[in-house]
């Protein structure tokens, strides 16, 4: 990865990595709006205004090397009120993307890698996945009113592709059924893919654009393969 914006001489900053999101960072008047609105201000020295200031000062590496970008949820409340329209959340995401991948904290990057490799962030094999959902589906079929319920896996020509949040598959199986109930009663023509069912794009979190594109590409691929017109994406 190229070094981040060298603030001075600033002519080259237009090509600098933290800039391409079309963020008018230069316009910052250090007014404090963002910092005042951010719930994280003060936590471990975090403050969106400081982030912008560091970038302005050409000290991006300090930002990238810190854990600050990982504390931020990129919720966008700061920029909601920013009088200069500075896109701080995108700045954060770009900064995350510039962190050496091994240094990405927690399981985000691991998840991304697993996802890229296996189609879901848990690294769950397809048979196991189908087993889990069919098991839950069978349970639902025992509930009154849902006796004819069956999970349509990889159904071609379905109207709706249903992707899943990995945590429902992993630990919170009981929450899988809500949508299924609705689909069932609404007599929806839907399907769940057995591969690449992951509905959460951790590339978004890690700042990894390539990974993000790959994930989305796969879903599009599915829809094309199965000839499905709409997508239900949990995030």
């Amino acid at each position: 990865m190229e070094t981040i914006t060298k603030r001075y001489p600033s002519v080259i900053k237009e090509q600098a990595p933290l800039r391409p999101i079309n963020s008018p960072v230069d316009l910052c008047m250090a007014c404090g709006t963002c910092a005042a609105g951010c719930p994280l201000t003060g936590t471990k020295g975090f403050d969106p205004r400081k982030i912008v200031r560091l970038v302005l000062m050409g000290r991006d590496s300090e930002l990238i090397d810190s854990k600050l970008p990982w504390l931020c949820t990129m919720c966008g409340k700061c920029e909601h009120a920013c009088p200069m329209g500075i896109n701080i959340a995108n700045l954060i995401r770009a900064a995350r993307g510039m962190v050496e991948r091994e240094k990405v904290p927690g399981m985000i990057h691991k998840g991304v890698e697993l996802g890229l490799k296996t189609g879901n962030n848990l690294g769950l094999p397809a048979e196991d996945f189908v087993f889990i959902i069919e098991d839950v589906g069978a349970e639902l079929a025992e509930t009154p009113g849902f006796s004819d319920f069956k999970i349509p896996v990889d159904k071609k020509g379905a109207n709706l592709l249903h992707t899943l949040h990995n945590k429902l598959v992993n630990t919170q199986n009981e929450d899988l059924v809500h949508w299924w109930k609705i689909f069932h009663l609404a007599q929806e023509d839907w399907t769940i893919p057995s591969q690449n069912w992951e509905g959460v794009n951790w590339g978004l979190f890690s700042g990894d654009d390539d990974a993000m594109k790959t994930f989305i590409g796969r879903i599009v691929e599915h829809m094309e393969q199965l000839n499905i017109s709409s997508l239900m994406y949990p995030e």
Partner: protein
Amino acid sequence: MFDLLVDYIRSGRIRLDKTKITHRVAYHDPCNYGRKSQELFGHGYYEEPRWILDQCISDWVDLFPAGGNQYCCGGGGGTLLTPYRDERIHYARRKMEQIKRTGAKMLVVPCHSCHGQIKAVAETYGMPDLRVKYLWEVVADILIID
């Protein structure tokens, strides 16, 4: 997702029993469906979930501020996956105060991250009994089955 639910309800493909939930419910706008969606797609999902709630629950309230200026629960942006747990709990304080002030027994969210985060921190903020439900979970709960 919101559009789908709205479509189901409006077209009558599913029918709901509004009398089932009688206690007070609060609704939380996730950043992604609001501000992010507004920024990326030019439409923030603020009205749709509220319309759905109107169909489901008689006593639901908004947090303040809500909509475009709402507080993030602290679980977004992948922070649930980072090891910075203390910071995340601290982050949630505003949101939790808001919820507490409404006196609601249940919080409805349409987002898995928010769901996870709020459930995880509710006890820390003295609301061990707060139920956190997905918006579609609420819908699923009150479906009228013929």
